[in-house]
Each structure stands twice: as C-alpha cells, then as structure tokens.
C-alpha cells in the first residue's frame, strides 16, 4: 500500500535525532512535527525569525506578532529565541540547521530540486526555498512519487525551473525511501506492500536497486 501523506511525514520523523535544529517546509513537511518520537527533543526553526517554534496557540493566546513562515499563528517554547530575517538566514547559510524537509515538484538523480515555478502559471516566488536548498547540509524531500498525470517526479533531469542544484540527499515518497548518491537514485526502503518493480516503473531517473530492499517500518 502506498503511504498517505501522514505516513510519509511519520517515516521522515524517524530521521530526526535528539537536539536537531529542523526547518520544515509547507505541506507534508509540516505534518512531521506530529510524529516526533517522545524520547527526543528537536527544535523547529521558522525562517521568519524564530527558533523553538511551539504548537498553535489556544484561542485566547493568539498573538498577531507570533507567526511562522507559513503565516500561521504559533507559540514560543522554553528556550525559544527571536531574531531578524538576516540572522535567520545567516544560521541557515552557515549550515547550523541540521535538517531541512521540503516538498518538491521534481527531483533529479543528481540531487537537483524544482519546487518554485511552473512556466505559464502565476509565479508566487521562491520565498526562502532557494536559500535553504543552497545551504542546508541535509535536505530531505517529501513528495508523491508521481504527479497527477501519473508521471514520475524522480527524473534524470528536472524539466521545471530549478530551485537548487545537487542538494537533495534523500527523498521519501508514498512508494519508497530513496537516497541520492553519486548522481544516482538508490532505493533504500519500500512502502509496505509496494514491490520493487512498482517503484522502478514509477521512477524515470536511474535507480539503483540493491538485492534486498526492506520494507519501511515506523
């Protein structure tokens, strides 16, 4: 069975380590915060100027001066810090954010990512995505394996305008966990019940398939 977007988030949550500083993009990545193991503590960075992003506020505590990068009202936590946007991207470019999880329209086998622009459609902008993918040391993409037309989103080359080059380290889709190694996709795990062949068919780029590919566990 292909994973739901919640299960994709749940699988990625296993990549978190205690003490990690993490930046989660909009969409599936945001869901990850619901699956953080109880025995570890991670600190969420919101690029509009907050480390230690807490949960949504109770209605009576809503504060217009406290939002996240998705413009949602949020809260601070013990140990939070507030800063300006230059400082926020300073720590991102410096490589101090341990993990960045982003959605994508396409990922190529050399780790390029496209997620900001579709030619012919209204372009809203890259926001902080170009800075994040250019600087984060550890980037995981969370996305569906194929698009709505059933075409692979894991490609030999991106067809859409690029957000960043050679930056994606790992892709978690509804079908598989795939690493990007030496300009090649490497199949690491299958979604429960999904066959290697199904994944191969759904992957346009070069996919290295080891002899034994375990099923994911959560």
């Amino acid at each position: 069975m292909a994973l739901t977007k919640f299960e994709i988030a749940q699988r990625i949550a296993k990549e978190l380590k205690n003490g990690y500083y993490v930046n989660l993009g909009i969409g599936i990545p945001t869901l990850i915060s619901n699956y953080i193991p109880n025995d570890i503590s991670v600190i969420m960075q919101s690029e509009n100027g907050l480390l230690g992003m807490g949960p949504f506020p109770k209605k009576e505590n809503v504060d217009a001066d406290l939002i996240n990068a998705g413009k949602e009202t949020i809260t601070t936590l013990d140990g939070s810090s507030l800063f300006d946007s230059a400082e926020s991207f300073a720590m991102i470019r410096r490589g101090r954010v341990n993990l960045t999880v982003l959605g994508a329209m396409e990922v190529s086998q050399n780790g390029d990512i496209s997620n900001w622009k579709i030619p012919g459609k209204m372009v809203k902008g890259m926001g902080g995505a170009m800075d994040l993918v250019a600087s984060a040391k550890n980037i995981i993409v969370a996305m569906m394996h194929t698009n709505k037309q059933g075409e692979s989103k894991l490609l030999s080359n991106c067809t859409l305008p690029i957000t960043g080059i050679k930056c994606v380290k790992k892709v978690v889709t509804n079908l598989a966990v795939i690493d990007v190694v030496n300009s090649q996709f490497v199949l690491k795990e299958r979604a429960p019940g999904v066959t290697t062949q199904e994944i191969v068919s759904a992957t346009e780029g070069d996919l290295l398939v080891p002899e034994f590919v375990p099923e994911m566990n959560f």
Partner: protein
Amino acid sequence: MNKVFKNADEAIFDVENNNTIMLGGFGLCGIPENLISALVKKGSNGLTCISNNAGVDDFGIGLLLKTRQVKKMISSYVGENAEFERQLLSGELAVDLIPQGTLAERCRAAGAGIPAFYTPAGVGTEIAENKEVKIFNNQEYLLEYAFESDFAFVKAWKGDHLGNLIYRGTARNFNPMMAAAGKITIVEVEELVPTGTLDPNHIHTPSVYVDRIFEGKNYEKRIEKMTIQ
C-alpha cells in the same frame, strides 16, 4: 535635533513619486500600518517597494496596489491577493523575485555599508542569470548587491524619542535591516517612550539609524492565517 513627528502624514512629507521604499514586515506581521495608510492618502505613485511580501487585497501593501501607486515590487513571495495578480498579468506591475535570505542580506549589506557580497542561494537557477559567479572552497557563489532606497518604513514595538527601537515576537523580521538601510528611515511604534526608559542592553535598533519616529495609532494587526489548537 528632534526626531519625533506627530503622525505618519507629517513623517512622510518628502516622499516623492517614483521613490524606492523599503517596507518591513513578513506577511502582515510587523508591517508599518500607519505609514502605508498615509502613503495611500498622499497618493505618491510610480513607487518601487522592497518588501518580503505584497500584502493582501485590502491590507498592507495591497492597499497601495489597489490605488496603483506601485510600479515595481521587489519581494521573495507575492500574490496572496487578486489585484496583484491582475496587475502583474496585465503588465501594469513589475516584480523582482529574490530569494528571501538574499533579500534580507541585501538589506543588511545596505545598512552595513557593504556594497556587495557572495551567497550560494540561487546558484544554477534562473536567478543566477547575468550575475557574477565566483568560486570559494570549490563551491559556486553569486555576487549580490546592497539595495538602494530612498526611504525605509519600519514598524517597531517600542521606541524612545532618540530612536532606539525594540521589536516584539516575529514582527521583527525585516524591520531592523531596513531601519539600518534606509537613506531616510521613518519608524512607527506602538509605544513611544521617554528616552532612558529602554534598557540599553535590549535595544534591537540603535538610535543612530532612525531619522523620524512617531507613535502609530489604531493598529489592526490583522492575522493572515488564524491557527489554533
């Protein structure tokens, strides 16, 4: 030298058509509400606005779009409003999209007297077109320039008569860098306090950057996406 103005109308007395204005804020958080309203009232047009976002249809920079005062937006993320999209598609409005960290750092550079710097953001993408590329430690970087602007419109939480500022929460965002960058920096604060009441160790923007300051009124502080538990 008195930096204190009575209100936004008086503080923007010398804004002219075709000026470039930096406006603080992220989404609708930390935006200079009073200054935007005064600018709508004043009617200056042909403006270039440097601001991370472009507001919504009936709030923030959206108000300046509705009155067609804006010629160009320099932003990282736009289009949360229909009028913006209409003007963009019809060619009435130009937009320069810039990675958010580069936008922030170009403001910071302007405020720090650094004319240009190198950043990895955008390497290999279309925003690298026509930009100087330089290699440091085997990695490519793009040369990016400090912004030039005629005015910075800044919103702070508290400010004293000398112009020392403290921001609150994530309403800080682009405000401090723009405060430092503006050729003329105009600040609205929720609370104008007597000089000497703010702790020198807690100041976010030192007074030296501030040319004019006033206490704003009728803050709406609209919330773009109300999310609760």
